[in-house]
């Protein structure tokens, strides 16, 4: 069956940041220097070719961009300045849009104005919602931050967090299911037995927590930074989802607070590090910044800063009213950031990357099995 070419695919990818694909003349240097490129996943050259040929269906089904961590070696070595690393990054953005069932991702990636509008809208709704809630159902007075009569009782915020988290998780799960269909489910060349799905499932949490593959890049520093960032996120997530009351309540739970400080320092440190990198454009990873990258980083800094500020205002200076105002401002940043980024934009990779590792392993085993019918034993060892 013939594959349909889409002559406009390359124009479309330009909207996601791939501007130099056409310079590529397929010398293959990029794939040769890439420490991850090996059978049956050869990249970035293959993806460059799919793009140049307009093979949309093949590109939508590839796992390869998720196996790339953008160390930038390929872009450094490229004799044509075709930026294979950046192209892989752009394809990841495009794939995120392909996986998204709502179509919002496509809108946000193609137009930073749309993304900004969405962020502002959600921010306003959040602010108005919490203000209204505080006045009507909460303590009613901005002068009380915590304890009985608090303007925003911790328990209520906690419930809201769970509702938001559940909604976002559901959206992300739907996108993951679509990712499975595009990359694995519909691909007739890979037949994955059900048992493999079960026995190899441990790969998802493994890669989610350790990002161990990132460590295989030549330079270990990006992994270390990324690991610190993820550890901070996870800590923050656990604190907010499970210990929100103790964060608010007085007397403070010292242990929860200690973790809170640590996570905040991690978040702010790594985010500032990333911002500085993008500003200086020192590494290939940071040389090209899509508008959505800036929106994300600015939001992160804003959320971290307002988080610290509301904490300081309440704990150290005892300024309840100011703390309440900043807290609402903090939520006005955090909620839209999570709502936009997790299911529709950059943050979704928290699910796609470990899943891609898992699917890639399944593909590899299925292909090996197909190549040697008797050789179920010759299946490669765990990743």
């Amino acid at each position: 069956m013939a594959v349909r070419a889409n002559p406009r695919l390359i124009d479309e990818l330009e909207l996601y940041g791939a501007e130099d694909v056409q310079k590529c003349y397929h010398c293959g240097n990029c794939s040769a220097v890439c420490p991850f490129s090996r059978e049956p996943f050869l990249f970035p050259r293959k993806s460059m070719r799919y793009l140049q040929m307009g093979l949309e269906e093949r590109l939508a089904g590839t796992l390869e961009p998720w196996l790339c961590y953008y160390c930038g070696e390929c872009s450094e070595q490229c004799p044509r300045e075709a930026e294979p690393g950046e192209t892989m990054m752009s394809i990841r953005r495009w794939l995120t849009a392909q996986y998204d069932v709502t179509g919002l991702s496509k809108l946000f990636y193609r137009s930073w104005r749309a993304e900004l509008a969405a962020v502002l809208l959600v921010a306003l709704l959040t602010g108005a919602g919490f203000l209204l809630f505080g006045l009507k159902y909460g303590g009613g007075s901005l002068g009380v931050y915590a304890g009985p009569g608090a303007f925003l009782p911790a328990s209520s915020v906690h419930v809201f967090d769970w509702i938001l988290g559940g909604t976002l998780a559901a959206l992300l799960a739907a996108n993951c299911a679509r990712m499975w269909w595009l990359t694995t489910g519909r691909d007739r060349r890979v037949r994955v037995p059900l048992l493999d799905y079960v026995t190899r499932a441990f790969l998802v949490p493994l890669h989610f927590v350790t990002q161990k593959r990132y460590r295989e890049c030549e330079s270990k520093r990006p992994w270390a930074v990324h690991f610190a960032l993820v550890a901070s996120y996870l800590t923050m997530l656990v604190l907010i989802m499970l210990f929100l009351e103790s964060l608010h309540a007085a007397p403070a739970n010292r242990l929860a607070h200690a973790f809170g400080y640590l996570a905040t320092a991690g978040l702010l440190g790594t985010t500032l590090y990333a911002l500085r990198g993008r500003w200086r454009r020192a590494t290939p990873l940071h040389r090209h910044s899509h508008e959505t990258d800036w929106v994300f980083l600015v939001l992160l800094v804003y959320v971290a800063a307002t988080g610290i500020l509301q904490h300081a205002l309440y704990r150290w200076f005892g300024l309840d009213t100011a703390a309440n105002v900043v807290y609402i401002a903090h939520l006005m940043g955090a909620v839209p950031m999570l709502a936009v980024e997790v299911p529709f934009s950059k943050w979704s990779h928290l699910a796609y990357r470990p899943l891609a590792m898992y699917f890639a392993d399944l593909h590899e085993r299925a292909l090996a099995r197909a190549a040697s019918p008797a050789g179920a034993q010759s299946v490669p060892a765990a990743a």
Partner: protein
Amino acid sequence: MSRPPLPRIGVFVCNCGTNIARTVDCEEIACAAMEWPGVVVARAYKYMCSDPGQEMIAEEVREKRLDRVVVAACSPRMHEPTFRRALASSGLNPYLLEMANIREQCSWVHDDPRAATDKALALARAAVARVVRHEPLEKRFVPMNPATLVLGGGIAGMTAALQLADAGQPVTIVERADRLGGNVARIDLTAPHLDSARELLLGRLARVSMHPMISVLLRAELEQLEGYQGNFTADVAVEGASRRLEIGSVVVCTGYKEFDAARVEGLGYGRLPDVITSFELELMLKRGRIEMADGRTPRTVALVHCVGSRSEEYHGYCSRVCCMTALKYGHEVKSALPGAAVVDLYIDMHAFGKGCEDFYRKTAEIKTLFLMYGKNAPPVIRPAGPKDDCNLLITLDEKLSGEEIEVPADLVVLMVGMEPREDAGRVAQLVNISRDKDGWFIESHPKLDPVATTTDGIYIAGACQSPKDIPDSVAQARAAAARILAKVAKGKIEVDAIFAEVDAARCSGCRICGTMCPYGAIEYDEEQKSSRVVEASCKACGCCAAACPSLAVRARHFTDEQIFAQIEGVL
């Protein structure tokens, strides 16, 4: 066989340092030679080609009143001209020399000194036997008519004509069509600089029509060409009437015609209205609107390269201009229809010309989709279905991905290759030049003499020789003109002393020689009932002499007597 009065022969044996003397006993040859009939002096010397060596020969010629010289040394292909000059300097006709090749074909290829010396003796003896029968030969000259006939008024023909006319020489352009300009007049822009073809032509057209030294015959055809280099007579039919021209040279610039795309069945040309040829697109571009048959604007334009070229079934050769022309269309389509996508389906991208690789890169950067198909596996084009958002679907086996790919397109342009014109065979016959297996005119030497032909005085330029772009055609036309001007400047044509001649008394008029001659250099004299060699056209291959049943044709310097004597000598 009658022998001439006893000659006085000098034999000079070269040691060539030790190159010859190491294996061949040169003194022995000199001694033995003294015994051969007619030899009055025989000497060996270390370097015969050196100045002292040549002087020695000249001195012996004068002192001993030698009338024949044999030099046993290296290959005549190496030093025959040197020793001929030595003879001439001593007042002897240079053709009274014979060389025995005892280096390249003796001392260097044999190890046994006895056997090598015996062979060298035989070769020297044969040379002595031969030289006895040599005759003094003189170079001849024929006048050169400065007028030139240019066949074809395309870019090559006009360029050659202008160059000749600007040098003050008369030119006649014979053009079959009713206008000048040829195929270049049919195109819009040129690759790779996107200059207007019209502007390239306009200046030339004006100058050609105004030039006092150029006369243009439109709707005209060459009917007959007689004569030889410097002295041709051409009969040209101009709109029914015949006109006779006296000319010295002919430049053939008859160009090409495009391949008939309908011959490639799967492309659907002629069946599908939105499958057009490159020349049809040029017409649209000249009119300023790219459109489909129903008047709509195409959103995707596909360009199929190598239509009729580089295939086993049609033409094996590359038509050279189509790749760059297709890239040019990429730019023209994108600038005329900014939203349109362009797809190039190619076999290999031939971007060899100056600036062409850059042009390829630029075309890629404007996001042209390049898909590669295999030789002898042309894409197949079919109408799209009602559900497709395009007009046509092209299927191809894409070579770089190994995938069978379907490309949606609204307009497909076939890059038709070049092929020889239908009348190329007739033109070749008229001016007596050859054609290669594909029907293109053959040049004298593919590398060193690409504008002359095997017939002296007939030159070729432009795409009638092989597919060519404009710069190459212009360069070849200018080269042809320069070649003619060099001959015109001399005023006469030197004819080598070695050529064939017919003894009219012996000739029976059977005309076998005439049919053998590859150069048409043998004329038949109806009055005398005998054949005659046109010295200026003869190249001295001697095939006529070998074929003459009455021994009436003599190949000068390679006569039967000379060779018979040589055979006797070597045995």
